[in-house]
């Protein structure tokens, strides 16, 4: 059925179609309309689930962890401060190998308070063992939520489905909402191999001594390796059912591209317009959109980027004291390439705290690099630079 949905509405419909059984969530802008939508669906009987209206995000995820441990398909959603408050349990969910799906609406971290998008909230959870999928459109959101359950339940790792604040969460788009019967065929009811069970009483989550701990973590890492293939497989299967295939990354006009622009989420939509215009002019530019960030498709990226003339990475995030996070990750993936194959990389940090990234910005980055005017490995874009950086560095306001 075709519907006009904003990103948040697409999340709620994805959760409904996946037949989540327990929802445990707490409101935060700009995530709220996800859980309001779900509250309506549960209240109207359109979704047969228990919605635990918890007193915090910390409890939101704790409720998902225990409900999942008892065998239910679960869902929660949050943003920024809420995700940070969950942090201890973010580790817990992955360590306990629970197939939880969480929608995170990317929002900048305070202070100062910001409700607008950037990726530092989700990327701060990079090393927790969760899978992360960055979405570009409402269509991709609804499709990814459903796929996330399938992949998570196969590899027993939780997934964060991530969408930009406002640019995606609150923008209405035309969406093909799949039929329930089709989704039911794609995603069978959850049957966890290990759960709380009166027939087989076991203690889950005990103390683990050093002689066993590492093996648990090794298995988590192996599950991530496995998940790379599963995401591709599931994305293809989805394509067979809906005509919309998904991969770990999305390649746009990369044939013959010497200048490759890499980014994630909605900035990719803007980049497409710029790439098209540059191609018109004869500049051999192309776009690589990161979709699945954890597990990290290093080998795939190496293959796609090897031998290109220049690679430009746009990060709507920053690992302070180093680079943008996508930039560093891609750079590390390319390290294994022989010198002649390894393209020079240029990182741009832009759009933090929801600052708009316009076509002109991307055009400026790409042209600056292509024409050799920008040579710095990392640049902050569209930012008011102080005359005296040493002094500015220690003045707050």
């Amino acid at each position, binding site marked *: 059925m075709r519907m006009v949905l904003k990103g948040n509405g697409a999340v709620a419909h994805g959760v409904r179609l996946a037949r989540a059984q*327990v929802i445990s969530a707490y409101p935060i802008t700009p995530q709220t309309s996800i859980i309001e939508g779900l509250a309506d669906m549960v209240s109207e009987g359109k979704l047969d689930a228990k919605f635990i209206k918890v007193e915090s995000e910390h409890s939101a995820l704790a*409720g998902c962890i*225990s409900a999942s*441990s*008892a065998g239910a398909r679960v869902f929660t959603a949050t943003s920024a401060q809420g995700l940070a408050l969950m942090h201890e*349990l973010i580790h817990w969910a992955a360590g306990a190998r629970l197939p939880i799906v969480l929608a995170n609406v990317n929002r900048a971290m305070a202070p100062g308070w910001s409700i607008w998008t950037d990726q530092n909230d989700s990327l701060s959870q990079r090393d927790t063992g969760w899978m992360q999928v960055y979405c570009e459109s409402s269509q991709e959101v609804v499709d990814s939520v459903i796929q996330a359950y399938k992949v998570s339940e196969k590899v027993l790792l939780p997934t964060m489905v991530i969408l930009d604040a406002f640019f995606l969460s609150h923008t209405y788009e035309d969406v093909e909402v799949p039929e329930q019967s089709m989704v039911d065929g794609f995603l069978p009811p959850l049957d966890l191999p290990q759960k709380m*069970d009166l027939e087989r009483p076991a*203690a889950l989550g*005990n103390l683990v001594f050093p002689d066993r701990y590492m093996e648990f973590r090794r298995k988590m890492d192996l599950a991530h390796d496995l998940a790379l293939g599963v995401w591709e497989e599931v994305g293809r299967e989805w394509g067979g059912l809906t005509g919309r295939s998904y991969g770990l990354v999305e390649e746009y006009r990369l044939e013959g591209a010497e200048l490759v622009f890499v980014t994630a989420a909605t900035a990719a939509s803007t980049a497409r317009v710029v790439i098209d215009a540059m191609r018109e002019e004869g500049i051999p530019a192309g776009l690589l959109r990161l979709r699945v960030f954890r597990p990290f498709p290093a080998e795939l990226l190496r293959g796609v980027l090897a031998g290109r003339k220049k690679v430009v990475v746009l990060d709507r995030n920053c690992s302070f004291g180093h680079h943008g996070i996508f930039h560093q990750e891609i750079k590390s993936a390319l390290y294994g390439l022989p010198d002649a194959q390894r393209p020079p990389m240029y990182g741009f940090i832009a759009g933090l705290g929801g600052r708009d990234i316009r076509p002109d910005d991307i055009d400026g980055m790409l042209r600056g690099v292509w024409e050799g005017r920008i040579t710095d490995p990392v640049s902050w874009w569209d930012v008011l630079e102080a005359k005296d950086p040493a002094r500015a560095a220690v003045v707050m306001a």
Partner: protein
Amino acid sequence: MAADLTTYDPRNLHLPEGEIMRSGHLACPGCGAALGMRLALKALGPKTMVVIPACCWAVINGPYPFGALDVPVLQVAFETAAISASGIKAALDVQGKDDITVMAWAGDGGTFDIGFQSLSGTVERNDDIIYVCYDNEAYMNTGIQRSSATPYGAWTTTTPAHTPKAEPKKNMVEIMVEHRIPYTATASIAFPEDFVRKMRKAQSIRGAKFIHLWISCPAGHKSEERSSVKIARLAVETGVFPLYEVEDGVHYTINHEPAFTDVTEYLELQGRFRHLDESQIENIRRNLEWEWLRLRAKVEMGQKVPSPPAPVKAKVDEGAHEPRGE
């Protein structure tokens, strides 16, 4: 009046026969928390699931891949016992398994302090779980630091003997009662039949139930292992820990009228109170009197005030429902 300790012959106790807790656990000798769990599970029976946050019991149950309980156990983060029980209950409900009791079993730190917020949320929603706080009056697992359940005057490693805890113990039971949950009770390992009865009563009531179980801790209270039950009994008989239950947030019943033995009998058996001088002990006596005045006034209040009106479910008028726009 001296407490009559002779009437409690363990051979005359009437307790359920079945054992769900096995002997191969890791509790210290004389641990009241081990005895408490044994009794709690005797009461609840095998159709029970247990949540254990960080606390001594996270260790007592045994390391991976062992477990001392013959029912499913989920160990959870320190501050999440209550919501974890809620989550399990919700999961069981959606799977149509409505005959399983879910019990959260947390220490005083996990209840009075770090898990307070989540507990308040769970009982405010009146989720159908039993929450037992086994109270050894400090963070014992991390080596005896004060909690807000530590009583006035007690030594802990963070309230050293020359500056012992200056504040009174937080009254968790009253905080739970004020959430208007259907059932709140105190219990003691020295009164096992009373404890078992209360657990069974809790099991028979739908909604949130809170049991505050006082236990002794030889390592943390600096007491003799063989005196654990005696000290627990003296906590009740001196009036330090009243045995009572509260229904519907208003009806108070005192389950055991203490002998009101002088509090020194209780204090002397525990090294954590050894440093107290007469003025501090007198302060404890005066506070006990005040606490009892308050408790008895509540019993009287409950005789005058009826149960709160039963909640009424909103009528849903299908036609009038206005769906929110996407």
